[in-house]
């Protein structure tokens, strides 16, 4: 009997059920979409913030002071310390290895470029990068310098006779070089005198394969493949600087303390939080002789922007939840209030208050579960669509936003709201005298 009542109620009162159902459906859709977006917004914005480049820099501890003004390094050429490129594999073993999204090693030296043999010398910073992706760890110079605009192609290493080079736009102008022409590389006087002496006198031929426009100091530099530079300098496996991009937690007061001054337990907590400082600390531990520092300009500001935007999304999700809750419970209240006549009839036929309340709650609950589940899928789809539209062209943005954890959460919320919304109306209807209801509302 109970099930028949329940069934008939759904079959016969389709319009009323539709209204309440649509309210729940839309409410859960909005809430699911907002929550799904809010949980993924951190990663998405982090990807966007990658345009600011690396947030951690690693350099040899024993290195001399950088004497750089306006991008021109006037550091004395003698000495200089290096790290081993092969040591970078150890980054995969640190606690927060999965948070490291990009590693770009570089080896820079001061050289002289000539537009044609023995003419038109330009002292230049020559920097070797890894332009191709290494299958072991992502070593992408490009991922960490997204503001570089290239005309031509990136250099490939290991060419037999002439190495490939990409020139900064200003450098290319002052050399009078264009894509396809050859330029000649010499070491700056006295630099690295211990190695590869013949380059002091006999210039190395480079083929220009691209011109890069960066808007910063790279416009005055020459970029080559890291292996070529290592060979040219006779320094296999050497890197002078490594840029690291990592997903981090915005810095708070705890992040700034010196971990070595903490008691062991606190230190462990510090160590296991993805602060830029702790990741830098772990890099120092992993790579011998390396000094790792967060690049505060990027890191501090990024963390700030990230926490503001995701905070905003969470607060708006909360507002959406509240509004949807109100709207759904109002719709449920109306739906029950409309059916006072039915309640009066059932009671006059001898149904107990408990049985009637149970019937109505069962109806609301069923509706909430059906509409809530549907709303979850709709909302997930909507979030995926919105995310893909707004963050189009980032690659990887087509990821599904189906978050299974949200399903029970959303359905439970719909249930609670639907039942809470029905309660006052059911109680009011049950409290009234059946005969009054029936006479007034026939």
């Amino acid at each position, binding site marked *: 009997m109970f099930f028949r009542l329940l069934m008939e109620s759904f079959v016969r009162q389709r319009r009323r059920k539709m209204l309440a159902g649509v*309210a729940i459906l839309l*409410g859960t859709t909005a809430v699911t979409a907002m929550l799904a977006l809010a949980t993924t917004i951190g990663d998405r914005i982090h990807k*966007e913030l990658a*345009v600011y480049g690396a947030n951690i820099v690693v350099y040899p501890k024993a290195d001399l002071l950088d004497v750089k003004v306006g991008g021109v390094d006037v550091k004395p050429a003698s000495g200089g310390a290096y790290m081993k490129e092969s040591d970078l594999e150890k980054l995969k073993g640190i606690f927060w290895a999965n948070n490291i999204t990009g590693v770009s090693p570089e080896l820079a030296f001061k050289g002289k470029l000539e537009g044609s043999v023995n003419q038109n010398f330009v002292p230049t910073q020559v920097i070797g990068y890894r332009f191709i992706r290494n299958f072991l760890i992502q070593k992408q110079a490009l991922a960490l310098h997204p503001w570089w605009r290239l005309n031509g192609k990136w250099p490939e290493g290991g060419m037999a006779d002439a190495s490939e080079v990409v020139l900064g736009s200003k450098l290319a102008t002052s050399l009078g070089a264009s894509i396809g022409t050859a330029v000649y590389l010499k070491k700056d006087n006295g630099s690295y005198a211990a190695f590869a002496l013949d380059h002091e006198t006999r210039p190395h031929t480079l083929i220009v394969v691209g011109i890069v426009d960066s*808007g910063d100091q790279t416009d005055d530099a020459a970029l080559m493949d890291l292996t070529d530079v290592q060979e040219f300098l006779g320094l296999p496996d050497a890197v002078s600087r490594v840029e690291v991009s990592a997903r981090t937690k915005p810095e708070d007061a705890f992040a700034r303390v010196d971990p070595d001054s903490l008691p062991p337990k606190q230190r462990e907590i510090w160590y296991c939080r993805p602060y830029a400082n702790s990741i830098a600390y772990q890099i120092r531990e992993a790579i011998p002789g390396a000094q790792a520092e967060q690049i505060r*300009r990027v890191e501090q500001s990024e963390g700030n922007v990230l926490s503001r*935007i995701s905070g*905003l999304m969470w607060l708006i999700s909360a507002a959406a939840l509240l509004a949807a809750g109100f709207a759904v419970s*109002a719709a449920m209240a109306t739906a029950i*209030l409309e059916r006072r006549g039915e309640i009066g009839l059932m009671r006059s036929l001898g149904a107990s208050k408990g049985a009637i309340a149970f019937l109505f709650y069962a109806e609301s609950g069923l509706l909430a579960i059906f509409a809530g589940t549907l709303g979850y899928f709709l909302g997930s789809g909507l979030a995926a669509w919105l995310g893909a539209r707004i963050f189009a062209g980032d690659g990887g943005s087509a990821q599904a936003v189906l978050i299974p954890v949200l399903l029970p959460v959303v359905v439970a919320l719909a249930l609670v709201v639907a039942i809470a919304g029905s309660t006052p109306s059911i109680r009011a209807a049950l409290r009234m005298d059946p005969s009054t209801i029936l006479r007034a509302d026939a």
Partner: protein
Amino acid sequence: MPTLSLVGMLQRSLVHRKARSFSALVAMTVSAGVATALLTLYADLDAKLHKEFRRFGANVVITAPASSPLRPDALGRVQQVAGVDASAAEFAYAVATTDTGTPVVVAGTDFAAVKRLDSWWQVDAWPDPAAANGALLGQRAAQFVGNERAVALTYAGHPVTLQAVGRIKTGGDEDSRIYMPLAAFTNWTGVGPSVIEVQVPGGAASVESTMARLRQELPEMQVQPVRQLVEGESKIVDRTHALMYGAVLLIALTVAVSVLATLSASVLERRRDFALMKALGGSQGQLIGMFLLEALVLALAGVAAGFVVGSAAAWAISEENFHTATLPHLSVLPLVLLLNVAIAAMAALLPLRVLRGLQPAALLKGE
């Protein structure tokens, strides 16, 4: 029998069904409140985000050509062109030798301006602006200085002694430099400032136009944007903007449809009133007007209450998230009003087709 005025009927209808009127009013308040809160936040979003991005420091760099130093009034002119909201600082650079014989870049600048411009610098103690020889040591540079109390530097044979007040830590080039007051720097080296860093507020368009004006004002200088900052900023602001826009639409739609469902159900429920009035000689137009008026009164009351509630919510959200207050925007009121009135009118008119088909006699007889 007293004549029934429209106002009288409206009043009775609203008062007599208190519970119903109240729930409709709550629904309208919620819809107006949500719309107000979201639109208010939305209106302020760009300004707030751009303000966050100002923490990245300078987004425009003005460099003097190597042949000629900056003119003495250059900073004043830049400040004038860029406006009072922009912060600017000038820098002078020279390579000096420390007491341990290491070459080091020494920069002369105005500490007060730098503190405002580069809020990401981690400095343990800023020098007293009155002290002529207070200096900041970069954390790497400090390792190459023998005596930090009295930092002895030599530039082209001229010695100077500085007192290191604090250390800077930035992870960038600043770590290998020593910063000192500009006046003392010029006195010592005879080198004038060559770089002005400017933080221009606002989006890409306003940075672009400020740069154009700067180029016009200072034709001999090189005016360059810090490209990744300018581009990244407008990209992220645009995306957040779009995200917020989507959220506003989505939530407004949800609330609107739910409110519509509630209100139109309550209109439908009054089929008996409709039938009775029709039987007593009310015209179709009068009845529709009656329903419409009732819905409009509720909508207006909802807007009044919702604007207050929504503005309070927007204020709380932005205080919580951006730590700055968002004041109520009266400019969102017309849009909220329009939205609510549209919902109310649709709620009153939607069930009309059903009502028109009703036979008063049949309904009143209870069939």
